[in-house]
Protein backbone atom coordinates (compact mmCIF):
# COMPACT_ATOMS: atom_id res chain seq x y z
CA UNK A 1 0.00 0.00 0.00
CA UNK A 2 1.44 3.28 -1.05
CA UNK A 3 1.76 6.02 1.51
CA UNK A 4 1.33 8.71 -1.11
CA UNK A 5 -1.94 7.50 -2.39
CA UNK A 6 -4.20 10.12 -3.84
CA UNK A 7 -7.42 10.42 -1.89
CA UNK A 8 -9.44 10.44 -5.01
CA UNK A 9 -13.10 11.26 -5.02
CA UNK A 10 -13.00 13.11 -1.71
CA UNK A 11 -12.54 16.69 -3.06
CA UNK A 12 -10.79 19.41 -1.12
CA UNK A 13 -11.32 19.37 2.65
CA UNK A 14 -13.42 22.20 4.00
CA UNK A 15 -11.68 25.10 5.69
CA UNK A 16 -12.39 25.03 9.36
CA UNK A 17 -14.51 27.96 10.51
CA UNK A 18 -13.85 27.37 14.16
CA UNK A 19 -11.58 30.42 14.36
CA UNK A 20 -14.04 32.74 12.62
CA UNK A 21 -15.65 33.95 15.87
CA UNK A 22 -12.23 34.77 17.24
CA UNK A 23 -11.37 36.87 14.22
CA UNK A 24 -14.68 38.70 14.35
CA UNK A 25 -14.31 39.31 18.07
CA UNK A 26 -10.90 40.75 17.45
CA UNK A 27 -12.38 43.18 14.91
CA UNK A 28 -15.18 43.98 17.32
CA UNK A 29 -12.81 44.88 20.14
CA UNK A 30 -10.72 46.98 17.80
CA UNK A 31 -13.74 49.04 16.82
CA UNK A 32 -15.03 49.28 20.38
CA UNK A 33 -11.72 50.70 21.57
CA UNK A 34 -10.87 53.02 18.71
CA UNK A 35 -14.24 54.68 18.13
CA UNK A 36 -16.53 56.83 20.18
CA UNK A 37 -20.29 56.81 20.44
CA UNK A 38 -22.17 59.35 18.42
CA UNK A 39 -23.53 61.98 20.77
CA UNK A 40 -26.26 63.47 18.68
CA UNK A 41 -27.87 63.00 15.33
CA UNK A 42 -26.72 65.83 13.18
CA UNK A 43 -29.43 67.93 11.64
CA UNK A 44 -27.15 70.40 9.95
CA UNK A 45 -24.72 69.99 7.10
CA UNK A 46 -21.17 70.79 8.03
CA UNK A 47 -17.87 70.99 6.28
CA UNK A 48 -15.38 71.67 9.01
CA UNK A 49 -12.57 74.05 7.96
CA UNK A 50 -8.93 73.06 7.91
CA UNK A 51 -6.24 74.31 10.25
CA UNK A 52 -2.71 73.43 11.28
CA UNK A 53 -2.41 74.55 14.90
CA UNK A 54 -4.67 71.90 16.35
CA UNK A 55 -4.97 70.67 19.87
CA UNK A 56 -6.94 67.64 20.86
CA UNK A 57 -9.96 67.81 23.09
CA UNK A 58 -8.82 65.77 25.98
CA UNK A 59 -11.68 65.09 28.35
CA UNK A 60 -14.73 64.21 26.32
CA UNK A 61 -16.98 64.49 29.35
CA UNK A 62 -16.17 68.19 29.74
CA UNK A 63 -16.97 69.15 26.19
CA UNK A 64 -20.26 70.59 25.03
CA UNK A 65 -20.93 70.94 21.35
CA UNK A 66 -22.58 73.68 19.36
CA UNK A 67 -23.24 72.94 15.70
CA UNK A 68 -23.91 75.61 13.13
CA UNK A 69 -24.65 74.99 9.49
CA UNK A 70 -27.23 74.68 6.77
CA UNK A 71 -30.10 72.34 7.73
CA UNK A 72 -30.04 68.93 6.05
CA UNK A 73 -32.26 68.63 2.96
CA UNK A 74 -35.03 66.84 4.84
CA UNK A 75 -35.38 69.73 7.28
CA UNK A 76 -35.12 72.47 4.71
CA UNK A 77 -38.86 72.53 4.10
CA UNK A 78 -39.57 73.63 7.65
CA UNK A 79 -36.40 75.49 8.57
CA UNK A 80 -35.23 76.96 5.30
CA UNK A 81 -31.73 77.09 3.92
CA UNK A 82 -30.20 79.71 6.15
CA UNK A 83 -27.56 78.40 8.60
CA UNK A 84 -29.04 77.35 11.93
CA UNK A 85 -27.71 76.51 15.35
CA UNK A 86 -28.14 72.99 16.66
CA UNK A 87 -27.91 72.29 20.37
CA UNK A 88 -28.23 68.69 21.51
CA UNK A 89 -30.76 67.15 19.17
CA UNK A 90 -32.71 70.13 18.00
CA UNK A 91 -32.50 73.43 16.23
CA UNK A 92 -32.18 76.43 18.48
CA UNK A 93 -32.01 80.19 18.36
CA UNK A 94 -29.19 82.38 19.60
CA UNK A 95 -31.06 83.18 22.83
CA UNK A 96 -31.14 79.53 23.79
CA UNK A 97 -27.35 79.24 23.86
CA UNK A 98 -27.13 80.70 27.36
CA UNK A 99 -29.68 78.25 28.75
CA UNK A 100 -27.86 75.41 27.03
CA UNK A 101 -24.54 76.40 28.60
CA UNK A 102 -26.11 76.71 32.04
CA UNK A 103 -27.76 73.30 31.67
CA UNK A 104 -24.45 71.79 30.56
CA UNK A 105 -22.71 73.34 33.52
CA UNK A 106 -25.30 72.05 35.98
CA UNK A 107 -24.73 68.55 34.70
CA UNK A 108 -21.03 68.60 35.60
CA UNK A 109 -19.24 68.32 38.88
CA UNK A 110 -18.52 71.65 40.51
CA UNK A 111 -14.79 71.00 40.64
CA UNK A 112 -14.70 70.32 36.93
CA UNK A 113 -16.70 73.33 35.80
CA UNK A 114 -13.73 75.66 35.20
CA UNK A 115 -12.25 73.19 32.74
CA UNK A 116 -15.31 72.94 30.55
CA UNK A 117 -14.76 73.53 26.86
CA UNK A 118 -17.29 74.47 24.24
CA UNK A 119 -16.53 72.98 20.88
CA UNK A 120 -17.87 74.98 17.98
CA UNK A 121 -18.51 72.84 14.93
CA UNK A 122 -19.27 75.33 12.25
CA UNK A 123 -19.57 74.97 8.51
CA UNK A 124 -16.87 76.91 6.70
CA UNK A 125 -19.35 78.77 4.53
CA UNK A 126 -21.29 80.21 7.44
CA UNK A 127 -21.30 83.99 7.71
CA UNK A 128 -19.59 85.44 10.75
CA UNK A 129 -22.67 87.32 11.98
CA UNK A 130 -24.26 84.20 13.47
CA UNK A 131 -20.90 82.99 14.81
CA UNK A 132 -20.29 86.39 16.40
CA UNK A 133 -23.71 86.28 18.09
CA UNK A 134 -22.98 82.84 19.52
CA UNK A 135 -19.60 84.03 20.77
CA UNK A 136 -21.22 86.98 22.52
CA UNK A 137 -23.69 84.64 24.21
CA UNK A 138 -20.85 82.39 25.32
CA UNK A 139 -19.04 85.37 26.79
CA UNK A 140 -22.20 86.43 28.62
CA UNK A 141 -22.56 82.98 30.14
CA UNK A 142 -18.83 82.92 31.02
CA UNK A 143 -18.05 79.86 28.92
CA UNK A 144 -14.73 81.27 27.79
CA UNK A 145 -12.84 78.14 26.78
CA UNK A 146 -13.74 77.46 23.21
CA UNK A 147 -12.42 75.22 20.53
CA UNK A 148 -13.00 75.91 16.86
CA UNK A 149 -13.35 72.39 15.57
CA UNK A 150 -11.19 71.85 12.52
CA UNK A 151 -9.54 69.16 10.48
CA UNK A 152 -5.84 68.63 10.10
CA UNK A 153 -4.53 70.35 7.03
CA UNK A 154 -2.18 68.41 4.80
CA UNK A 155 1.32 69.87 4.85
CA UNK A 156 2.06 72.20 2.02
Amino acid at each position, binding site marked *: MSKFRKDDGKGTPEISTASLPDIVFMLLFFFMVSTTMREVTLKVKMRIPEATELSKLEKKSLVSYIYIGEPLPMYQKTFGKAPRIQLNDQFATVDEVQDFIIAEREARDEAEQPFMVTSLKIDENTR*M*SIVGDVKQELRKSAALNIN*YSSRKKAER
Partner: protein
Amino acid sequence: MAKKVPEIPGSSLADIAFMLLIFFLVTTTMDVDSGLRRKLPQWVDPSELKDQNNEINERNIFVVLVNKNNDLLVEGDYEQIENLRERAKEFMANPYNAENLPEKEPMEVPYFGQVMVSKGVISLRNDLDTQYGTYLAVQNELVAAINELRDELAKQQFGKAYEDLDDDKQDAIRKIYPQKISEAEPKGKNI
Protein backbone atom coordinates in the same frame (compact mmCIF):
# COMPACT_ATOMS: atom_id res chain seq x y z
CA MET B 1 -17.92 7.01 33.73
CA ALA B 2 -19.63 10.37 33.91
CA LYS B 3 -22.47 11.02 31.58
CA LYS B 4 -21.35 12.94 28.54
CA VAL B 5 -22.92 16.41 28.25
CA PRO B 6 -23.70 17.24 24.64
CA GLU B 7 -21.57 20.14 23.42
CA ILE B 8 -23.21 23.43 22.60
CA PRO B 9 -22.83 24.11 18.91
CA GLY B 10 -20.43 27.00 18.35
CA SER B 11 -21.27 27.66 14.77
CA SER B 12 -23.64 30.53 15.53
CA LEU B 13 -21.05 32.36 17.62
CA ALA B 14 -19.64 33.98 14.51
CA ASP B 15 -23.07 35.32 13.57
CA ILE B 16 -23.58 36.82 17.00
CA ALA B 17 -20.16 38.45 16.92
CA PHE B 18 -20.84 39.82 13.44
CA MET B 19 -24.08 41.32 14.63
CA LEU B 20 -22.31 43.06 17.51
CA LEU B 21 -19.58 44.25 15.17
CA ILE B 22 -22.06 45.77 12.76
CA PHE B 23 -23.91 47.44 15.62
CA PHE B 24 -20.72 49.14 16.77
CA LEU B 25 -19.73 50.10 13.26
CA VAL B 26 -23.03 51.89 12.78
CA THR B 27 -23.39 53.66 16.10
CA THR B 28 -19.86 54.95 16.61
CA THR B 29 -17.69 57.46 14.87
CA MET B 30 -13.98 57.40 14.44
CA ASP B 31 -13.19 61.10 14.08
CA VAL B 32 -10.89 62.53 16.69
CA ASP B 33 -12.11 65.82 17.97
CA SER B 34 -9.46 68.40 17.48
CA GLY B 35 -9.55 72.07 16.87
CA LEU B 36 -8.09 75.47 17.38
CA ARG B 37 -8.22 76.34 21.05
CA ARG B 38 -8.96 79.96 21.89
CA LYS B 39 -10.04 81.81 24.96
CA LEU B 40 -12.77 84.42 24.81
CA PRO B 41 -12.39 87.63 26.79
CA GLN B 42 -14.54 88.25 29.85
CA TRP B 43 -17.92 89.75 29.18
CA VAL B 44 -17.91 93.45 29.89
CA ASP B 45 -21.02 95.54 29.98
CA PRO B 46 -20.93 97.91 26.99
CA SER B 47 -21.85 100.88 29.21
CA GLU B 48 -18.75 100.42 31.34
CA LEU B 49 -16.57 100.17 28.31
CA LYS B 50 -16.95 103.76 27.17
CA ASP B 51 -15.01 105.57 29.88
CA GLN B 52 -11.95 103.43 29.36
CA ASN B 53 -9.64 105.06 26.91
CA ASN B 54 -7.23 102.54 25.59
CA GLU B 55 -3.87 104.14 25.31
CA ILE B 56 -2.14 101.73 23.07
CA ASN B 57 0.42 103.26 20.81
CA GLU B 58 -0.30 102.95 17.11
CA ARG B 59 2.95 101.12 16.41
CA ASN B 60 2.07 98.46 18.98
CA ILE B 61 -1.04 97.28 17.16
CA PHE B 62 -1.02 94.87 14.26
CA VAL B 63 -4.32 95.47 12.56
CA VAL B 64 -5.84 92.66 10.54
CA LEU B 65 -9.14 93.36 8.82
CA VAL B 66 -11.19 90.82 6.92
CA ASN B 67 -13.96 92.15 4.73
CA LYS B 68 -17.10 90.51 3.41
CA ASN B 69 -15.34 89.33 0.26
CA ASN B 70 -12.79 87.53 2.43
CA ASP B 71 -10.01 89.96 1.49
CA LEU B 72 -7.34 90.74 4.02
CA LEU B 73 -6.09 94.17 4.97
CA VAL B 74 -2.97 93.94 7.10
CA GLU B 75 -1.56 97.16 8.56
CA GLY B 76 -3.17 99.18 5.82
CA ASP B 77 -2.36 97.16 2.73
CA TYR B 78 -3.84 94.21 0.91
CA GLU B 79 -2.22 90.95 1.82
CA GLN B 80 -2.49 87.31 0.82
CA ILE B 81 -3.25 84.87 3.58
CA GLU B 82 -0.04 82.96 2.80
CA ASN B 83 2.05 85.97 3.81
CA LEU B 84 0.16 86.73 7.00
CA ARG B 85 2.20 84.37 9.14
CA GLU B 86 5.51 85.99 8.16
CA ARG B 87 4.13 89.48 8.71
CA ALA B 88 2.81 88.56 12.16
CA LYS B 89 6.10 86.92 13.12
CA GLU B 90 8.08 89.95 12.03
CA PHE B 91 5.75 92.18 14.00
CA MET B 92 5.90 90.17 17.21
CA ALA B 93 9.64 89.54 17.11
CA ASN B 94 10.85 92.91 15.80
CA PRO B 95 14.41 91.62 15.55
CA TYR B 96 16.05 94.92 14.52
CA ASN B 97 14.01 97.19 16.82
CA ALA B 98 12.52 98.98 13.85
CA GLU B 99 10.73 102.26 14.46
CA ASN B 100 7.42 101.21 13.00
CA LEU B 101 7.26 97.87 14.84
CA PRO B 102 6.22 97.54 18.50
CA GLU B 103 8.23 98.87 21.40
CA LYS B 104 9.80 96.52 23.88
CA GLU B 105 10.08 96.73 27.60
CA PRO B 106 12.55 94.93 29.86
CA MET B 107 11.06 92.10 31.90
CA GLU B 108 12.46 89.61 34.38
CA VAL B 109 11.73 86.09 33.16
CA PRO B 110 12.93 82.89 34.86
CA TYR B 111 15.57 80.96 32.87
CA PHE B 112 16.18 83.98 30.66
CA GLY B 113 16.97 86.80 33.08
CA GLN B 114 16.36 90.31 31.83
CA VAL B 115 14.80 90.20 28.36
CA MET B 116 13.11 92.71 26.13
CA VAL B 117 9.46 91.77 25.71
CA SER B 118 7.42 93.17 22.89
CA LYS B 119 4.34 95.21 23.74
CA GLY B 120 2.69 94.25 20.47
CA VAL B 121 -0.97 93.33 20.26
CA ILE B 122 -2.65 91.73 17.27
CA SER B 123 -6.04 93.17 16.56
CA LEU B 124 -8.43 91.19 14.35
CA ARG B 125 -11.67 92.51 13.03
CA ASN B 126 -14.03 90.81 10.65
CA ASP B 127 -17.12 91.85 8.79
CA LEU B 128 -20.53 90.37 9.56
CA ASP B 129 -20.52 88.73 6.16
CA THR B 130 -17.05 87.22 6.38
CA GLN B 131 -16.99 83.49 5.81
CA TYR B 132 -16.18 81.44 8.87
CA GLY B 133 -13.62 79.43 6.91
CA THR B 134 -11.58 82.54 6.13
CA TYR B 135 -11.89 83.79 9.69
CA LEU B 136 -10.56 80.53 11.05
CA ALA B 137 -7.74 80.45 8.51
CA VAL B 138 -6.68 83.93 9.64
CA GLN B 139 -6.87 82.94 13.30
CA ASN B 140 -4.88 79.84 12.50
CA GLU B 141 -2.12 81.84 10.81
CA LEU B 142 -1.88 84.25 13.75
CA VAL B 143 -1.72 81.45 16.30
CA ALA B 144 0.80 79.66 14.08
CA ALA B 145 3.01 82.75 13.97
CA ILE B 146 3.19 82.92 17.74
CA ASN B 147 3.68 79.17 18.06
CA GLU B 148 6.57 79.31 15.59
CA LEU B 149 8.24 82.13 17.51
CA ARG B 150 7.88 80.19 20.75
CA ASP B 151 9.30 77.11 19.11
CA GLU B 152 12.30 78.99 17.75
CA LEU B 153 13.02 80.50 21.13
CA ALA B 154 12.69 77.12 22.84
CA LYS B 155 15.11 75.52 20.37
CA GLN B 156 17.58 78.37 20.80
CA GLN B 157 17.46 78.40 24.59
CA PHE B 158 16.82 74.81 25.58
CA GLY B 159 17.55 72.89 22.40
CA LYS B 160 14.10 71.30 22.41
CA ALA B 161 10.76 71.91 20.79
CA TYR B 162 8.36 74.05 22.81
CA GLU B 163 5.93 71.18 23.29
CA ASP B 164 8.56 68.95 24.87
CA LEU B 165 9.54 71.45 27.56
CA ASP B 166 8.55 71.35 31.22
CA ASP B 167 5.62 73.44 32.37
CA ASP B 168 7.65 76.20 34.01
CA LYS B 169 9.92 76.56 30.99
CA GLN B 170 6.84 76.83 28.79
CA ASP B 171 5.52 79.49 31.14
CA ALA B 172 8.73 81.47 30.76
CA ILE B 173 8.48 81.36 26.98
CA ARG B 174 4.81 82.26 27.11
CA LYS B 175 5.79 85.38 29.05
CA ILE B 176 8.14 86.46 26.31
CA TYR B 177 5.73 85.70 23.49
CA PRO B 178 2.23 86.04 24.89
CA GLN B 179 -0.71 85.18 22.66
CA LYS B 180 -2.19 88.63 22.53
CA ILE B 181 -4.84 88.43 19.86
CA SER B 182 -7.67 90.81 20.44
CA GLU B 183 -10.87 90.55 18.50
CA ALA B 184 -12.82 93.70 17.96
CA GLU B 185 -16.58 93.64 17.68
CA PRO B 186 -17.46 93.38 14.02
CA LYS B 187 -18.69 96.59 12.54
CA GLY B 188 -21.99 96.56 10.76
CA LYS B 189 -22.41 96.44 7.06
CA ASN B 190 -20.92 99.92 6.63
CA ILE B 191 -17.29 98.87 6.37
